[in-house]
């Protein structure tokens, strides 16, 4: 049974995210900037899925819970996406060049999609937690503004 390699994700060298990056990363993108993925299912073939935010991408990739099958609420369809396109999207739409590079580098030729997810998922999770921490630690300016 595979286990998501959290340690390996932590070991990847990425400069810290900035608040500006976090804000952009967690915002919803436009239709033109969406990331197109394909959910694969035997009954329906490859069903196109439009992803409109970094959060949706993470949820989508973890939607195939390879390491948690059999657990409550686990879903085991194949939520496929093109990892090269993901890398480009992270760089060009989200603006996180460091994460894009890290995703690109862990994607070794010949990897199965399951292996890709196991390698990339923790990177996205680590960065997502960084983004969230940056925004939740920020004093709420709304009312004073």
């Amino acid at each position: 049974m595979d286990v998501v390699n959290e340690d390996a994700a932590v070991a990847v060298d990425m400069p810290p995210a900035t608040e500006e990056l976090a804000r952009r990363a967690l915002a919803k993108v436009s239709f033109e900037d969406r990331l197109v993925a394909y959910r694969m299912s035997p009954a329906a073939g490859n069903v196109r899925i439009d992803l409109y935010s970094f959060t949706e991408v993470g949820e989508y990739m973890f939607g195939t819970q390879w390491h948690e099958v059999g657990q409550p609420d686990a879903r085991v369809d194949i939520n496929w996406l093109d990892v090269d396109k993901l890398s480009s999207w992270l760089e060009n739409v989200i603006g996180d060049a460091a994460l894009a590079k890290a995703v690109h580098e862990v994607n070794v030729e010949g990897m199965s999609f399951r292996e890709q997810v196991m390698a990339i998922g923790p990177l996205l999770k680590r960065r997502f937690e960084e983004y969230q921490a940056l925004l939740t630690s920020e004093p709420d300016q709304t009312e004073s503004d």
Partner: protein
Amino acid sequence: MATGGYVGKILYVNLTTGDMEEIPTADYEEWGGGHGMGSALFFDRVKDKTIDGYHPDNLVTMMTSPLSGTLVPSASGRTECNFIGIQQVPVGWYTRSNFGGRFAGELKFAGWDGIAIQGKSETPVWLNIVNGTVTIEDASGLWGLDTYETQEEIWSIVSGGNADDGTWYGLSTGRDGGRTTQRPAVATIGPAGEHLNRNACVLHDAGNAAGQGGLGGVLGSKNLKAVSVIGTGSIAIADPAALVDARMELQAAHGYDVDAPALEGPVPNFAFYGIIEGHPGFGPLILNVDQPARAQGCMGCFKNCRRRLSNGISNEDQCVESLWWVSGTSQLETNKATDLLDKAGLNVYDLINGHSYLNSLYQMGILGPGKAIESNLPWEKYGTYEFIEQFVDAIVNQTDIGADLADGVSRAAIKWGRWDEDTSSGLLNRPQWGYQQHYEPRLEVEWSYGSLFGDRDINEHGINWHVHWHATVTGMIGQAPLISAEDMVNLIAEGTGVGDPMGWNYSPDGIYTEAKAKAIAWHRHYTRFWKQSIGYCDWAWPMFINYNNRDGDFTGMSPGFEPRFFNAVTGKNITWQDGLELGRKIWNLDRAIWVLQGRHRDLEVYTNYVYDTPTEAPDALPMYLDGEWKYDPGLGRSLDREKFEGFKTTFYTVEGWDTATGWPTRATLDELGLGKVADELAAADKLGA
């Protein structure tokens, strides 16, 4: 003449006049059963084949096969329905749909090989079949009920309230009227069908549905709410010992041993792997079970691919309906969304990408409050159960954009002026006849060619499980294929009888060859007879490859076992090839009906995206590339217009059709014993030259 399998008569009901008729099954026995018998009845009894699907003269057949209600594995539970469809665009072709469960068996136990329904009742009615007694009942008290409520009400009426707990009850007041513990088998429409929705289905028990073509809307137009049947008779088997021996042999070789599986997926509980090793209850495919559950199957099945859950939500659902709302945030919401459709009697497949297409229009600023396509549904909550509940309600009751969507997403897109643009870009990926793309039309062409040359999305998985899913599943999880591409195509080529493995070559050039045309023709003929007329379920048959064989030999049970079971039941002595030839006859009869409806070569083209946009997702298929067989993802592929037009000519030639029009010729029809069909085409000036 058969000595077993058939029970002797077909029920004909005219809802306009209330007249009924017993048609001797022997009059149509040459067609096998199911679809073949239905098409022959349709041809004889519908004089004007160009009528609209809502026309009262549209004939709906609900047919069994000689194997229905017997022990033949994965072939006993299907009911085949033929009718003029209301779903397709631009023409509602004469079409088919079927459903599983126990309706076909009960119909046989009641003494009927099938039902043919024509006309239109002035008021809502339901058909009550209790053995040989058939009555047309008032359905005013059922109209408006959902499909589950309707069935519960009819169970109570027919059983006198005794069917709830398995109590023995008599079916008549007479001594010999028969006793049973069974609930009547009810096929019913829901509110969607009552409202003439073009995607309404007919539902039976919890999750068996005849969905494609809009049969629910057709029955709604006839004011027919439901058909109920219960019987206490039996079915003669010509050679019971041969039937049991064959079943036991197949079970031993191909069954899944839950105590000691011959093959297990490398990722525990990975539902997809059920496609390969066939563990019980894998049918919902994407959903793991998060609560006590057990496997469930259609009558007589040895695979039992469906499941029942302890919470009772989405029971017996599988395949597409079980995953149409995976956008939901939990498995419970996904299951609840499935039940929404079941109860409304709404077919899922128009909506599975339909809702995401509409969300795209919303994201583009085209659809929503105050937009070009006005909709006040809570699109900002897309992805939630709250949204999908309102969305389904709008379609069923034809409010908001549901008024347009009741005619189907494709017709709605046409009405909104979006069809050309969105089917050209692929945003609305509907390759033929307005049906949602199912399997990749640019690659897996036995699916797309079969759909285009026919009447609907074929939804025939028998070859697809192997050529597509075996390599896709193993590749995705990093497992080496269990069988090489070369061995796979050789087994299929040998099993089918086609002989040339290039028929299953999905390479850029391989999809346009004469070998491919022969493979496509074989597929059309196989399914028309063995699947749709005899009832072999495509979730099990044909069995060309058996991954569960313990000795490493992947040879499956086809082609030997289809005729072996058929002959054991009927006492006939037909061969695999005889069945294929009957399939060709039925396929040509259907083709003639489509021609009378307006089919022409010029209409058999895909929407633009199939030719103009490349594939983006892997679709592993066997391909012969650079002198060797391999599984290849086929990325970046589109269909070549010119080559496809050439392929059409090749295919028409293989089928014996006029290459300029795609119409059957008299020589072909005469050879098949369809001279009267040729006469009708000639009278309409539509006989191929």
